[in-house]
């Protein structure tokens, strides 16, 4: 039997986080949605189905088959929706052929080899459609991630589930005698090679704390569970508040609350980040801060696919795309969406709630800055510092995203230019 994880056609609801990765590579907790599915159905070799534009880069990252339709029909299959936040489920790999639905959305398709062979395996969506027409349907309880703030909202419970699934407790790394656990010591895991330095407090009164391999926690840091610090991440002092997942390979200081920092990103200095999701290779300059609560406590609107959408939530921070850099003193409003590869320079006020991919923002105006080529050069430099490189596949994907985001970017740049000469 195989586990096939598929990306459905709502990937753009999760922009800017999904421009460069499939939905199931997004983190919720210490691990991604996809990693949670794989561990829920152990022993099943995974295969993946993703949109065409990201397939080459994703295929390079994973050792498993990508968009190989023979994976759908050659064996019995459990086809799982990549947006499924699977923190424990009654669904088993083995069982009768059926389609699991939650509020009309496909959560999984379970099909025997014989049934799978009878489904249209030309592509994953055809397969699902034929399975829906042939197989019994079962209503199941499941959480599907629909929008970026859902990842943040479920982050705490996802960290707790990851801690349980990890099955490890205690100190395998270094824990200074001048550091303390406040609360249940059994709710801490400090992995091999990790280092908790003096005057660090791990507060487990509301949830577990995971400090993964090679992570270092500098003095004067308070980490409040549930919280997960990823591999080789450096915490430079400050408050890592509950429901926060950071890493791998991040450098973070200041105050972070209920946020996800995907990996390879820096927020080295003071400044508040709350209810936010930060992509990879992001650098937040000193005192960069986001609001995550409006002064009138009303629900936060978020820019999704060109329109402001009500999140139905009062605590929503910012969603920052990969490779974006902010200057010192950048202030983001609640629910701000920043595209990939932006260069944002705060000028004292709160910035617009939507900054399109590859744009520069300074002097309260949008600009192309030094252009696309210069942004790529900056990305190469930043990645080189961590011994990583942009592959030809990455480059092709960035060119594609630059192309598909051109209109929304140029519209704002043109408006800014008219103001420039007014």
């Amino acid at each position, binding site marked *: 039997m195989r586990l096939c994880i598929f990306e459905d056609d709502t990937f753009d609801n999760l922009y800017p986080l999904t421009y460069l990765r499939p939905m199931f590579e997004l983190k919720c907790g210490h691990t991604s949605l996809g990693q949670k599915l794989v561990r829920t159905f152990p022993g099943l070799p995974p295969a993946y189905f993703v949109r065409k534009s990201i397939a080459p880069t994703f295929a390079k990252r994973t050792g498993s088959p990508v968009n190989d339709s023979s994976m759908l029909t050659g064996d019995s299959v459990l086809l799982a929706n990549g947006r499924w936040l699977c923190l424990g489920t009654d669904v088993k790999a083995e069982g009768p052929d059926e389609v699991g639905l939650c509020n009309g959305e496909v959560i999984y398709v379970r099909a025997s080899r014989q049934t799978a062979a009878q489904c249209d395996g030309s592509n994953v969506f055809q397969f699902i459609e034929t399975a829906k027409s042939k197989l019994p349907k079962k209503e199941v309880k499941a959480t599907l991630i629909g929008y970026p703030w859902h990842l943040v909202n479920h982050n705490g419970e996802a960290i707790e589930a990851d801690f349980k699934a990890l099955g490890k407790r205690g100190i395998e790394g270094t824990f200074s005698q001048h550091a303390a656990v406040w609360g249940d010591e059994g709710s801490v895991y400090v992995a091999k090679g990790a280092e908790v330095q003096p005057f660090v407090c791990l507060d487990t009164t509301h949830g577990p704390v995971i400090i993964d391999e090679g992570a270092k926690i500098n003095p004067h840091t308070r980490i409040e569970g549930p919280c997960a610090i990823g591999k080789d991440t450096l915490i430079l002092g400050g408050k890592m508040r509950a429901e926060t997942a950071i890493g791998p390979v991040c450098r973070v200081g200041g105050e972070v609350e209920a946020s996800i920092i995907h990996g390879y990103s820096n927020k080295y200095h003071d400044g508040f980040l709350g209810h936010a999701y930060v992509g990879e290779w992001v650098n937040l300059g000193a005192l960069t801060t986001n609001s995550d609560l409006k002064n009138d406590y009303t629900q936060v609107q978020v820019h999704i696919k060109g329109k402001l959408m009500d999140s139905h939530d009062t605590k929503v921070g910012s969603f920052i795309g990969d490779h974006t850099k902010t200057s010192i003193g950048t202030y983001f409003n609640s629910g701000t969406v920043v595209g990939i590869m932006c260069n944002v*320079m705060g000028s004292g006020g709160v910035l617009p709630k939507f900054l399109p991919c590859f744009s*520069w923002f*300074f*002097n309260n*105006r949008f*600009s*192309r*800055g*030094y*252009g696309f*080529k*210069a942004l790529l050069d900056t990305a190469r430099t930043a990645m080189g510092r961590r011994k990583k490189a942009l592959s030809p596949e990455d480059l092709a994907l960035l060119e594609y995203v630059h192309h598909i985001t051109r209109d929304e970017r140029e519209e704002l*740049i*043109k408006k*800014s*230019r*008219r103001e*420039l*000469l007014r």
Partner: protein
Amino acid sequence: MPTVSERVKTVTAKILKLDPKDISDTADFVRDLGAESLQSIELVAAFEEEFGIEMNEDEALQVKTIDKAVSFISKVMAAQGKA
């Protein structure tokens, strides 16, 4: 109808907050007019808006003086049918 040179000077004066009369034909944007890096980007954007053209950022940012900007913009205008 103002010449390209006059329009370049007017735009430059507006972005750099100068008097157009103080801008000579051979003035260097950085050395003589005090343009900082972000203002250079704004100058490129403003020239594109003023002349209705699109310039290659790398090439445009290599232009150092008013007279070279005039000839560069004139060339781009001709190539893009805006002359």
